[in-house]
């Protein structure tokens, strides 16, 4: 089996100005490809968590992690294996609908557990949160209705309960306070 092309890194960083730019510019100058990236503060206001899906065809994961770890503001890096993580992503999509198709889209959204969050005369905006693969499926199906605009957040993840706490590949295994 081919090795997976995408790896999810969960990167705990100090919540300081310019940290995202440091991470992004590191990826740019070393030629690493980011597939998706999501960032927000953690429950501890001193830190933010960046979830990065790395395209490792551009460079070995180990090298990406070692270079990231050199950034002074990067506190901890964990690789989350899909089997040991709970991943989630959010999708917003505006679909053009005429009168007959409106009900179909609403029904389809229901099947996927998505909710309609905005209704216009000839369009609907639907939101779906869930596993990235479920979002892929929904996106494929909804595409046939005519997507006006679509936005996904990139995935975030935490280790699965009961599974090992992800692989802490660099940095502290627990953040000291």
């Amino acid at each position, binding site marked *: 089996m081919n090795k997976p092309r995408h790896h999810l890194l969960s990167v705990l960083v*100090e919540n300081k*100005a310019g940290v995202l730019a440091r991470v992004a510019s590191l990826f740019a100058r070393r030629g690493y490809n980011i597939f998706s990236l999501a960032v927000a503060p953690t429950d501890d206001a001193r830190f933010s968590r960046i979830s990065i899906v790395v395209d490792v065809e551009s460079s*070995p994961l180990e090298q990406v992690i070692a*270079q990231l770890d050199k*950034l*002074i503001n990067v506190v901890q890096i964990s690789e989350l294996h899909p089997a040991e993580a709970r991943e989630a992503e959010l999708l917003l999509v505006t679909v053009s609908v005429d009168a007959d198709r409106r009900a179909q889209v609403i029904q389809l959204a229901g099947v996927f557990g998505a909710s309609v969050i905005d209704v216009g005369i000839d369009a609907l905006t639907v939101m779906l949160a869930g596993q990235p693969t479920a979002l892929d499926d929904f996106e494929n199906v909804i595409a046939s209705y005519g997507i006006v605009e679509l936005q996904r957040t990139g995935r975030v993840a935490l280790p699965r309960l009961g599974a090992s706490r992800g692989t802490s590949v*660099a940095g*502290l295994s627990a953040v000291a306070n």
Partner: protein
Amino acid sequence: MQLTGAQALVKSLETQGVEVMFGLPGGAILPVYDPIIDSSIRHILARHEQGAGHMAEGYAHVTGRPGVAIVTSGPGATNIVTSLCDAYMDSIPIVVITGQVATAAIGTDAFQEADITGITMGVTKHNWLVTNAADIPRIVAEAFHVATTGRPGPVLVDVPKDVSLQMMEWYWPDSLDMPGYRPPSKPEPALIADAAELILAARRPVIYAGGGVIKSSGSPALARLAELTGIPVVTTLMARGALPDSHPLCLGMPGMHGNYTAVTAMQQADLLIALGSRFDDRVTGKVSAFAPHAKVIHVDIDKAEIGKVRRPEVGIVADARLATEALISALEPRTVTGELRSDRLEDWMGQLRRWQERFPLAYDSPAESEASGASGRLPLLKPQFVIETLRASTPDDTILVSGVGQHQMWASQHWRFEHPNSWVNSGGLGTMGFSVPAAIGAKVGRPDAMVWAVDGDGCFQMTAQELVTASAERIPVKVAILNNAYLGMVRQWQHMFYEERYSEVYLSADLPDYVGWAESMGCVGLKVETPEEVGPAIEKANQIDDRPVVIDFRTDSMEQVYPMVPAGASNDDIVVHPSQASRLAAS
């Protein structure tokens, strides 16, 4: 005690033990230059900020302490980017303070505004934009800590003008809170044990010593490890002097212009013990063909270097000195078992000695060049001869600084390096113009030592104005220009790989008039055209201790640097001096 941010900055530098800084003022840094008048710190006024940066590097190179440079915003800051990048590539600890426009003006394209923290993100180990005067002592302490620990490197602190003027209550942090910065130091014992077994099993081992040995003060340990195990050592361009060239186990420099024995020893080794070296492309040549039979032990303080280029059998993230000492401790008990008997490497050492005899560094005598009709009317000087004479005429602990080009390679080959921290050059970035200001910084750091710069005519023209700084500040450096009238190294590539189609590499030997230029800058200027004049001119220069000296050595333009591994080729395809080419087939 209430201080302005500017006063706090200068006091922080004093508290850090800074004794000298190199800089050039301007609008945004003006508030900081006022307390400099009353400070114990010596300020040396450079004539260009790139020069200030290289001076700080030269100082750091020879003292092992961080060099400090201070410049204004905008063009002052961008002018020092080259020095930062140079220090980044060669892991030199420097701290650069830049002025910045007032915080309210940031982002408005204000006069002399440049996003210097953004610009230098990729060429500093870390940088800081100070937004509050109260943060200054903490940030300065962090900056010095980051620059000097782990893998050393340059850092930059950007200080907006209004922050310099703000009042703050002075303090000095007693601890630093940097949860993301944990430089490694000690090696893992289990890995040392694995490495020791590889060392005992090896029959064609080579120690591949890099700049990390010098930075970790690991030279004495390196000598002990080599002597304990009998393993020969190559010293890279950044590690010349890490083991004295006169040491019987020192094979000299490997790489693109390394000597035949050092290059070939690595190619044929069954074990490479890389200590603080990074498998740079100038050392490995074509990576897939590099040292194909060798197992690798790789010690580096930067984890990202382990496996970046070559996957080691044993990778050890640690300070090079501590790892070397740990290896010694692990191996010492094995002397009693006889596992380290020197005859285990007899065949290998015999092979190395034969290569050294067959393929010493070689160059034509002037007579040979003339006979072959290769050179012009004068009995032209051989640059290698100038360097050998210089070495023979200067004290053992002379500090040698070089620019970038052929002269740099001749200096690294033909000088006899006997001490760590006595060789200052721009390895990773290859920055023309490095040598004059770096020599000034080195002389400031080691006023007791004689400092000679070996420079190219092209390089000299990039930063020569810093000799004005040297004259004004009475910093008596000595500069030997190997004036071949060409951008010689580029000419060499055009000679070898572009069918001698010389494109934009001619400079002229007489324009500028180097002697006149040197004298106008307050130096003594000398010109040397024949071999007989070399020794006396150097003697004369050595006597002068109250001002800088520049000697314009007119050297043979046709001279090429040998050996050479063509770019991208395997190290097996090393090109030796033409006089030795016929011996290659036989070896």
